[in-house]
């Protein structure tokens, strides 16, 4: 008996019942200092049953997918729904129902299984070896790592409202890092929180330039050892896409999440400086700022066709010409707030309920090449690759650090500086946006590590961005 038939037998007599199955296979291969680390495979399989009944809502997650197992979970979910129908924060009779039907399979050009384990490990070994320097014996190098995280995600959703959805997504998250130490100074150079993660197969390695990375990371890390500290003071700041990813994520993505604005996260991830009345009125950034929610960008990490409440996903403008238009809220949050949103009700797996997540959140390209952006700066810093992130619970006061930076003087890129940091306030920072890079500066980034929710969930997000220039930012370096 297939899952749909078992669900039909298990579903109780309630207003609405949904089953969401997740079958996720992952594999982590890593090499550290020329030694193959223990390989890690994972097979995660289970289902969540959600019941809406008489205005209440309840869920139960189980890894027992037999009829009796699903029935026990459905009964528990129904019990929660009945018990809390009168005490819920929201009348779930107003919640959207999963009625759509469809299938989505993300394309893969070079399947993971098409290359032997030995060849994949050799690829990692080669990059790790290159991180040891040209003669592979640089004693300033203290740790070298490279890894590949591969995930195949299969989900099915069935509802008593007629919904039937199947999705299959493949993703690859490459990562590499070298740590160097000399003269009491330690520096690291890497790819930053698996920031090169994308959907697809092994073709991702070519798309992100993984081969040859080891040599570059070594070279740049060694340069950092002898570089001066980043200067301090207000100055122009040019951010590469691998730092823009973090900037977008923390100070646009999280503040626009509708469940935060509605207060759900105030005990954990925090609230938001954005309020419901700002949409359609608030100037979030300069008129150069265009931001979209776009689950349709091929290869971007959080691309999908339906969210985990079964809503079809499509591109939406969140900010246009700097004006705040729309929050990041899924169907349930939209019904609670009375605002249009996006299809972003997502769960990290079968054992956690969907909440508002940012998925693919992108800054749209502008007119300038990287050279033109640099030429617009009299005194400033160009920073790459996030190293540190901290922001207040309203997602306003932030401080971010990067691994790599170069001074910009009189429109020219200058010397490398180390320990670059900057701080600001979201509500004003984006209004200092003075230049947006064109498509030649744009990169599709992503990370599997966005934490939020009670119970906690870590989920995948994608952020595509051009290089962006900000005026008069409070920049500083490292010291004790």
């Amino acid at each position: 008996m297939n899952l749909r038939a078992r669900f039909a037998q298990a579903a109780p007599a309630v207003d609405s019942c949904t089953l969401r199955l997740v079958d996720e296979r992952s594999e982590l291969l890593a090499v550290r200092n020329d030694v193959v680390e223990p390989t890690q495979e994972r097979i995660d399989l289970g289902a969540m049953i959600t019941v809406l009944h008489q205005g209440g809502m309840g869920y139960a997650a189980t890894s027992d997918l037999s009829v009796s197992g699903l029935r026990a979970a459905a009964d528990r979910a129904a019990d929660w729904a009945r018990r809390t129908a009168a005490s819920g924060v929201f009348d779930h009779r107003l919640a959207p129902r999963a009625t759509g039907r469809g299938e989505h399979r993300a394309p893969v050009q070079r399947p993971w299984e098409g290359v032997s384990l030995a060849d994949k490990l050799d690829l990692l070994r080669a990059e790790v070896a290159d991180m040891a320097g040209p003669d592979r014996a640089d004693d300033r190098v203290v740790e070298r790592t490279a890894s590949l995280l591969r995930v195949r995600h299969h989900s099915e959703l069935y509802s008593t409202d007629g919904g039937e959805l199947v999705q299959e997504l493949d993703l690859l998250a490459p990562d590499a890092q070298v740590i160097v130490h000399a003269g009491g100074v330690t520096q690291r150079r890497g790819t930053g929180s698996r920031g090169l993660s994308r959907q697809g197969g092994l073709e991702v390695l070519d798309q992100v330039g993984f081969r040859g990375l080891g040599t570059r990371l070594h070279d740049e890390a060694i340069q950092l050892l002898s570089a001066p500290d980043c200067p301090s003071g207000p100055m122009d700041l040019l951010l590469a896409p691998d730092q823009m990813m973090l900037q977008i994520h923390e100070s646009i993505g999280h503040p626009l999440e509708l469940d935060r604005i509605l207060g759900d996260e105030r005990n954990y991830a925090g609230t938001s400086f954005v309020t419901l009345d700002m949409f359609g009125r608030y100037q979030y950034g300069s008129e150069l700022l265009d931001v979209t929610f776009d689950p349709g960008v091929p290869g971007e990490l959080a691309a999908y066709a339906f969210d985990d409440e079964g809503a079809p996903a499509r591109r939406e403008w969140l900010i246009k010409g700097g004006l705040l238009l729309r929050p990041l809220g899924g169907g349930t949050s939209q019904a609670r707030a009375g605002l249009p949103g996006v299809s972003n009700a997502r769960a990290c797996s079968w054992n956690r309920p969907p909440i508002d997540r940012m998925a693919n959140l992108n800054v749209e390209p502008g007119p300038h090449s990287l050279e033109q952006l640099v030429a617009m700066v009299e005194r400033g810093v160009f920073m790459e690759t996030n190293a540190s992130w901290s922001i207040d619970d309203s997602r306003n006061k932030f401080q971010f650090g990067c691994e790599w930076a170069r001074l910009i003087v009189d429109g020219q890129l200058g010397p490398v500086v180390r320990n670059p940091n900057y701080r600001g306030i979201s509500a004003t920072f984006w209004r200092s946006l003075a230049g947006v890079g064109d498509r030649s500066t744009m990169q599709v980034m992503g990370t599997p590590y966005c934490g939020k929710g009670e119970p906690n969930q870590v989920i995948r997000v994608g952020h595509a961005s051009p290089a962006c220039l900000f005026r008069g930012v409070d920049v500083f370096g490292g010291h004790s």
Partner: protein
Amino acid sequence: MPASPAHARFLDLAQHVDRCLQPGEDHTLWLQGEESDFVRFNRGRVRQPGTVRQDELTVRLIQGQRHASVDLTLSGEPVEDRDRVEAAVLRLRARLGELPEDPHLLWATEGASFTRIADGAPPDGREIADLVLQEAARDGGVDLVGILVSGGMHTGFASSRGQRCWDQRHSWLLDWSLVHQGDKAVKSTVGGTDWQPELLRARMDQARATLPVLARPARRLQPGAYRAWLSPAALAEVMDLLSWGAFSHRSQEARNTPLLRLLTGEASLDPRLTLVEDVGQGLAPPFTADGFTRPAQVPLIDAGLLVGSLVSPRSSKEYGRPQNGAAADESPTSLSMAPGSLPDADVLRALGTGLYISNLWYLNYSDRAAGRMTGMTRFATTWVEDGEVVAPTEVMRFDETIFHLLGEGLVAIGAEATLLPGTSTYERRATTSARLPGVLVEGMRFTL
């Protein structure tokens, strides 16, 4: 003799994997399971209530110095689960032929067996949730937001050498905030192994009593250096950040620890500072995924000096140090700091004029190698003048080194150490905890 149905299923699986082995093979099994109620609240009402039942088994197959493992979700149905682990063993056996020998492999080939089963039945989340709702609605109601977590958890280890370990426990934990307005809130946690309604009522009363202070006009502080009291919960955030590499033997060898300057003697910590990985007093199982028994205590910092590190089995092989019960990430699970001499009742007087920091939030490194960190104040952080709480404060960003916070700037350590159960529920409920006092610091730097 199985002590529970979950234990019986685990022993059955271990025996089944024993039978699947070929000559020259070994296995280890590591099980983490729970049946948990999660009830999420917002504005004194229920946002998302639910139950999660899950068991994840790590099956590792070993041939000499070759090994490979797979994490499997178990169904709970014995025949189905035997089939899953049998298929896993076959798959792992095929994989071992493609893998090189691992020079850093170390596992407990002569480990001791262990069984611990908590008394009584797991608390029922539905009953606790009812009381939370009643308390939130009392006296006109309060804006309560947070999560209730309750139910049973179990951890098991087994190996082909006959070792069998089992730890089964249950608990409830309410992690919640009472919100006055905006980001002005009182954050609390309360819980235990057995459901105690009077304990929840008492903590709720304490939190309610703090709310009037938050109604006062908030004080906006200018950047600068301030005298500050960090509550145990605030200090726990500092320790959480430090746990990210500070005590790891691997990080220390790679010169990547935020305590690098302590390691090299360029900086020092206060001689009153003592930190221990205190598994004996913590909530984590006393055995590891590699089958080793965890020592009751591992000294890390004694009298301000770095005296130890957390050594995983891999680091043990790589660096020639004895392993000491650390997991692969070499982070503390049960960090304990020795209390000092400042009684709770004297904290405000000793603070005099400055910041009473109830909670910190979102810490990270400004300069990791220098031990310099940044983060935000959060929740009921108040301004104190002449030993009296004056007003709540707008959130402030600090940027300070650990060598100032727990070194040259340390004025006093609280006389009471508080047990702080881990509230993390990423993937599953945490078994971590910390036992910390508060600290009084002079000249803590705030930047934004």
